[in-house]
Every structure is written in structure tokens, then in C-alpha cells.
């Protein structure tokens, strides 16, 4: 599949437009902006309508649950990056409860012009919520539904939201071949309670709650199977890598993360078998790996200067990208997982916090290309095509941006943005468009997207 070129942000708040307009020519002339994401973004997006669900029964909880469901489903499909959504104001105001009840021409005609319609009914009875969801092709009447599925759970707004996420991901998987991100979680660090602790939220910023206690804790990285959380925590003996079981709700042993020196920035290999991290146990901060069970520690780098923030190639497991200050200001490097074939990726400035894309093709990282005392450069999020070293700048003139991480569908990036002393978690599509703020406490840092 041929992916489109990355385009400049197309959705800009009006008040920013004036200040950004005069920056466009220089950005467009930059040859390096020729990076393809391989994610199918903007590649003939499917025109999709999401009808409001038809309510069945007259349970008093119905209006609230239905509103939550309708808004969540629409939000998930809009955020997916693969649909051209029919806005609610353009859509017919009917609520067909099943494929038998829909008048397709009403949806395929202007102004909706929908190619596909998601529809269904919501039933709340006896404390349970049952959702019958369908996806139909609006352009070819008579075809069987593309998707038809029933979902159920106890009746609560959280479950209404969770069912909408599942239905959305089923629709996205059916139409694109790749599961969506509506059911994924984002782990992050928050100091909103005073101490920096690890928190977790749904991918859309809903449902935020604390995970760890006894910090300060930093650099959370969830395991590929969502069962464990590795992070760095400061205790009396210094910084160690700690391992928290999300299933057991307690710490589990990770002997490799403790001994000597400072230990920072853990990273999981895609098979869940290994952890790479930075440790100064040998006297200088270097990249180490060990088994996820905590044994078999091995040093990969040996060079004076800081080495930190490793990320594995999730496609092959055979390479690690990381940050090294061996030549002065920090730069992004790549090496084989045994420490060989060290290659420098960035050509200057201050480059930090790499994350390797799920398809193996790209790095995203934070870069200040004009860093230095007195220099006016901004810390922005970039994407680099590893094979060609060509890069594209995704954020422009909006605070200081750091800690980008890919979503598992390869189409989104979550990152940290600091503006005027307030730091928040944001997401965007991998071409820099559709930027959304997810947290509002002003003290949220270091996001990490779950693998599924």
C-alpha cells in the first residue's frame, strides 16, 4: 500500500493560525518532510456514519448510558485516523435499531454521503446493558451486514464506554485489517497528588487512576501482555528498576534492577522476554539488558558519557535505539541487540526519548535542532524513517514536547507537552494532525502506550 506524504497540521485553532501562517513556506520547502508513515493515514479515508443507538426498554439509566455510548463510539471512530466521519449535524436524525430498520438511501445521499453506517440498539434491563451493533454498506443495498455482534455487561457508564470501545475496534479491524486503539491504555507519571507516581487512563483520557505508591517513580513501561509494569523508582539506596504486577496488584521480584548505581528508563522487548535499561553500576551510565525475570544482566555499551532511554525494534527484536551523550549533546543512536553496529541517527541539536514504531520502520523522538544557551529553539516531536534517515517535524511552536510513544496501530503518537509550567499528555495522528489534550492537572509526564 502506498502511504501518503506527511502533511502539515490541517486542524489549527483559529487564534494560532495567524502566528503559524508565516512559518508554512519554510516548512514546506524542507526536503526532509518527505517521510511516509506506512500507516494508511489519509489514504482515501472511508466515509462513515455512526447512527445514535436505538433505545430499547425504559430503564431510568438508559438516557445516560446511551449518551455515553453514542459519544464514545463517535469519538473512537473519529480518533482512529482512518475514517472521514459524517458529522452528527449532517446525519439523518433517525435511529435504526437493526439492518432491517435502516433506509440506506437516506444515509448514502447528500448531505451525509456515507459509504458505511454503524448502527444498533441498546437495551438496559435488570442491571445489565446489551448492545446489538451492526456495520452496513450504504452504497450497495441488499448486501448482508459487514459486521453484526452483540455485547453485554453490567449496567454502568464505565461499561457503556468499554462496550463502545470494543464495538469501535471491531469496526476498525473489519475495515482496515488492523485492530484500533479504542481499548488500549496509556500509562503516565503524575505529580497531582504531590509525589510523582505512575497513573493509567483509557486512550481517550477517561478513567484516570493511580497505580503505584511510594515514589517518586518515573519512566513507566507496560509489558507487551499488559500484565506487568516496569519503571524507575527512587528509594534510600538510589534509583532502581521496579516491577509491578498489574494482575496481583503488588511488586514482584526483579533482582536485576537493584544492584549498585542508578538505574533508569526500562524498555520491554516485544516478546516480553527482556528488559533494556540504563545503569551506572559499572561506574558510568550504560545500556544494559537482562531477562524479564531479573537474571542474566549484560552490558551493551562502553563509552564515557550518559547512555539512557533505550527502545527495542518491536518488529525484529534485533536492534535497540537509545540516547547517548558520548559526543556532547545527546543524540539518537541505533545498535544491534548485542551491542554491535552502532549507528548515529541524528546530526546535531539535542535529541532524546526515542520510541520505535510497531512496524519497525520509524523512530519518533524529541528534538531541539537549535539547542544551546541563548538559542531560541523549541523541543519538538519528530518522526524519522530509519532506512533513509529522512525526518519530519510533527509539532510546531506549541510548548516544549517530549516522550513520544507510538500506539500499537502505528497511526498515533502520545507525548508530553509543557506550556508555561503546566505539563500535560497529548495525542496526535502520526502525521502530526488531530492533536488532543488528554490530561488537565498540569503535572502529567512521560506517557507510555500499552501494546494492545
Amino acid at each position: 500500500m502506498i502511504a501518503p506524504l506527511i502533511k502539515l497540521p490541517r486542524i489549527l485553532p483559529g487564534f494560532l493560525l495567524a502566528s503559524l501562517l508565516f512559518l508554512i513556506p519554510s516548512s514546506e520547502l524542507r526536503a526532509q518532510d518527505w517521510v511516509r508513515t506506512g500507516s494508511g493515514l489519509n489514504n482515501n479515508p472511508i466515509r462513515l456514519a455512526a447512527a445514535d443507538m436505538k433505545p430499547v426498554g425504559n430503564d431510568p439509566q438508559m438516557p445516560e448510558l446511551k449518551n455515553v455510548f453514542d459519544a464514545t463510539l463517535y469519538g473512537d471512530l473519529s480518533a482512529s485516523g482512518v475514517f472521514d466521519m459524517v458529522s452528527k449535524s449532517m446525519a439523518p436524525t433517525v435511529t435504526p435499531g437493526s439492518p432491517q430498520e435502516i433506509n440506506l438511501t437516506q444515509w448514502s445521499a447528500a448531505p451525509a454521503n456515507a459509504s458505511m453506517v454503524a448502527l444498533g440498539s441498546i437495551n438496559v434491563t435488570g442491571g445489565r446493558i446489551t448492545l446489538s451493533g451492526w456495520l452496513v454498506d450504504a452504497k450497495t443495498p441488499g448486501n448482508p451486514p459487514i459486521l453484526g455482534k452483540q455485547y453485554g455487561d453490567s449496567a454502568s457508564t464505565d461499561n457503556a464506554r468499554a462496550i463502545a470501545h470494543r464495538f469501535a475496534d471491531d469496526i476498525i479491524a473489519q475495515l482496515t485489517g488492523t485492530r484500533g486503539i479504542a481499548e488500549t491504555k496509556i500509562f503516565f507519571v503524575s505529580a497531582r497528588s504531590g509525589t510523582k507516581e505512575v497513573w493509567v487512563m483509557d486512550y481517550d483520557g477517561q478513567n484516570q487512576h493511580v497505580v503505584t505508591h511510594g515514589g517518586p517513580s518515573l519512566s513507566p513501561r507496560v509489558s507487551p501482555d499488559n500484565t506487568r509494569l516496569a519503571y524507575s523508582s527512587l528509594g534510600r539506596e538510589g534509583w532502581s528498576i521496579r516491577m509491578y504486577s498489574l494482575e496481583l496488584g503488588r511488586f514482584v521480584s526483579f533482582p536485576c534492577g537493584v544492584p549498585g548505581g542508578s538505574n533508569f528508563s526500562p524498555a520491554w522487548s516485544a516478546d516480553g522476554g527482556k528488559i533494556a535499561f540504563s545503569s551506572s553500576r559499572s561506574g558510568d551510565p550504560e545500556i544494559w539488558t537482562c531477562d524479564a525475570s531479573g537474571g542474566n544482566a549484560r552490558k551493551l555499551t562502553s563509552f564515557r558519557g550518559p547512555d539512557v532511554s533505550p527502545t527495542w525494534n518491536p518488529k525484529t527484536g534485533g536492534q535497540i535505539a537509545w540516547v547517548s551523550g558520548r559526543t556532547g549533546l545527546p543524540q539518537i543512536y541505533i545498535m544491534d541487540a548485542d551491542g554491535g553496529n552502532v549507528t548515529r541517527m541524528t546530526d546535531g541539536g539535542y535529541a532524546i526519548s526515542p520510541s520505535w514504531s510497531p512496524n519497525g520502520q520509524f523512530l519518533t523522538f524529541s528534538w531541539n535542532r537549535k539547542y544551546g544557551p541563548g538559542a531560541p529553539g523549541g523541543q519538538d516531536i519528530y518522526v524519522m524513517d530509519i532506512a533513509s534517515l529522512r525526518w519530519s517535524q510533527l509539532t510546531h511552536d506549541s510548548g516544549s514536547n517530549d516522550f513520544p510513544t507510538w500506539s500499537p496501530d502505528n497511526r498515533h503518537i502520545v507525548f508530553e507537552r509543557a506550556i508555561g509550567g503546566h505539563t500535560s499528555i497529548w495525542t496526535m495522528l502520526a502525521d502530526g494532525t488531530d492533536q488532543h489534550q488528554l490530561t488537565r492537572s498540569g503535572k502529567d509526564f512521560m506517557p507510555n502506550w500499552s501494546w494492545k
Partner: protein
Amino acid sequence: MSSRTRVLTCLVMLAAVIGFAGCKKKSAAGNTTPPGMNGPTPTAQLTATPNTITAGDQVVLSWRTTDATSVSIDGIGDVPSSGVKTVTPTESTSYHLLARGDGGTADATARVTVNQPQNAVAVPNNMDEGNLTEEQRFKQNVQDIFFDYDSYDVRGDAQATMSKSAAYLAQNPNIKVLIGGYCDERGSNEYNLTLGQSRADSAKKALIQAGVSPDRIRTISYGKEKPFCTESTEECWQQNRRAGFTIDR
């Protein structure tokens, strides 16, 4: 839109933005000198870092004022219009800063919570005082050293400080040292943590070279997690690019 048209459009927008900014500046200047006042109203900021300590620990007060003709902090007296001062409160204290200017006054408050040491009840008074004195003598003799931007090399101006520290530690062989590595607020948390570690380790190496036994020295990096001050100025950044020494108990 052709690129020429776009450039032209942008130049027009740029001119409009500059013009608008120019207007804004004028009206703002007008507002700061309202009729009947003799000058702009002073502003004041005061921070205490850390804001929770154990008795005997130090707190860095950092303040900044504008348009003030006299500035004072209760309990300290008159101070410069902006500055940094180390204090050692023995009980919880609210530091109150008052800035007086031609256009009025402004004040700022910073609260420091002082926890008593956990063994304070069990230890006789004279011993407690002895600890305090040792702590103070340590602070006088083993002083923090500062680093250049993005560097962890011990600077020339820190050599004398390190020699004095090593001499004091040689005279007090029972004292163990904890070296904390700190960074300024710029750049990534993770990279700064390793940089802070390297700064602490550089200071440790310098002490070892001056004859202090390695098993008396422990290092911890605080990166930019525990700043001494929080302003985005070169003075504050320099304050934060440091290796700090405390007695390791």
C-alpha cells in the same frame, strides 16, 4: 495557492502581527502608569526549596521582585531585590517577603515544614546539639560544586572547594558522604538523571583522587526532580547544575 502568493500573504500577516503587537505594547505601557500613582506596582515571588525538611537540613530561599525600592524578609531583614539565601530553620516557618516601591507594596510567602528527627525523643539534648554542630561544620567545609551547561567535568573553580572538602573528610574519618547530582530544568528527565549521576560520580572521583576512601562515598542522581530554585533564568539554572554534599547517616 502559489508559493509567491503564500509568501506575500504571509508577509502581510507578519506585518499585521507586528503592527498588532506594537499597538498592544503601547496600551500596556499606558496601563502600568495610571494617573495618580508615582510608579509601577511592585511584584514579588518567593520560593523555599525543599519545602519539607528534617531539622538541621538546609532550605534555599529564592526570591525575585520588580519595581521595588526596598525588600525585606521577616526574620532576615533587608535583602537585595532578588537573590538566593540558604537558611536552616529548626521549626516550621513561614517566610514572608515584603517589597515596597513607589507604586505600592507586594508580598509573598513561602512555608517550610520542619520535621524533627525520628530519634530526637530518645537522644539526650546535648547529643542533639552535637549533631547539629557537626552538620553545620560539614556544611562550612564541604560545599556544593557547580557545573557548566550539559557538562559533568569538575570545573577549575571547584578544585579549591574539593581540596577543602577532602581535607575536612581526612580530619573526620567517621563521616560518610552522600553526593547528589542535580541538573537544570532544560531537556529530558531521563537524560538529566544520567547527567546528574555523572556529575555526582565526577565529584566522587575528585574526592577519591584527593585521598578519600571510595567506601565512604555514595552517589544519587536527582536529575531535575529536586530543583533548588524554579525560575527559568541562567542564575537559577547554574544553582541547579550542581553536586550537593550531605552527611550519609
